[in-house]
């Protein structure tokens, strides 16, 4: 039933490690996103993919590499994790229609880097 699901929900790791977050949507949407929410709850777009093609890349360090194997999946791999990467990462999807578009978010992955 879940529209946008991401795993894991919590991720605790040490500096320097590499980790991945997976995201899947069953809404049939063409566009998927990764957003980062900091400790002040500010949501900032990181990447956007449309039908497996990178559309938006918002000045994110190249330690972050998104991968979209198909339009229902958008994974995020992070190399050499740093303390400042600690945040909640949200995956989202959208479809443009007559009424515009709306983002459908997953429930987030809380990443803690120690």
């Amino acid at each position, binding site marked *: 039933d879940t529209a*946008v699901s991401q795993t894991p929900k919590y991720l605790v790791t040490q500096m320097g490690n590499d980790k991945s977050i997976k995201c899947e949507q069953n809404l049939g949407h063409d*566009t998927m996103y990764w*957003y980062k929410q900091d400790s*002040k*709850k*500010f*949501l*900032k*777009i990181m990447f*956007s993919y*449309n039908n497996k093609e990178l*559309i*938006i890349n918002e000045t994110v360090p190249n330690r972050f590499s998104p991968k979209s194997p198909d339009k229902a999946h958008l994974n995020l791999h992070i190399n050499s994790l740093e303390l400042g990467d600690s945040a909640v990462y*949200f995956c*989202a999807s*959208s479809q*443009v229609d007559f*009424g*515009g*578009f*709306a*983002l*459908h*978010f*997953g*429930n*987030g992955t809380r990443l803690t880097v120690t």
Partner: protein
Amino acid sequence: TQLLEQSPQFLSIQEGENLTVYCNSSSVFSSLQWYRQEPGEGPVLLVTVVTGGEVKKLKRLTFQFGDARKDSSLHITAAQTGDTGLYLCAGTEWTDKLIFGTGTRLQVFP
């Protein structure tokens, strides 16, 4: 870089009170959305406004898009404890890139 400033940042009120949250920018947006986020969950869309001056009502919530399409407000009448959450405005400039506001944390006490 577009910036959407929300005010107030925090709001703590009692059930039954009315409140207004503001979302302001110096940029013009083609559409503006409001989301509500509860702890441990992702934001959920409440409304989209697309026409300058547009007013939309969703039960006790009233949303307005400014005439110049640079600002918006959310008014809640007779707040309930279930309204507690983080309210986020978000705007787009004729693309599918959504820029989020700074957020307003609302706490409604019984």
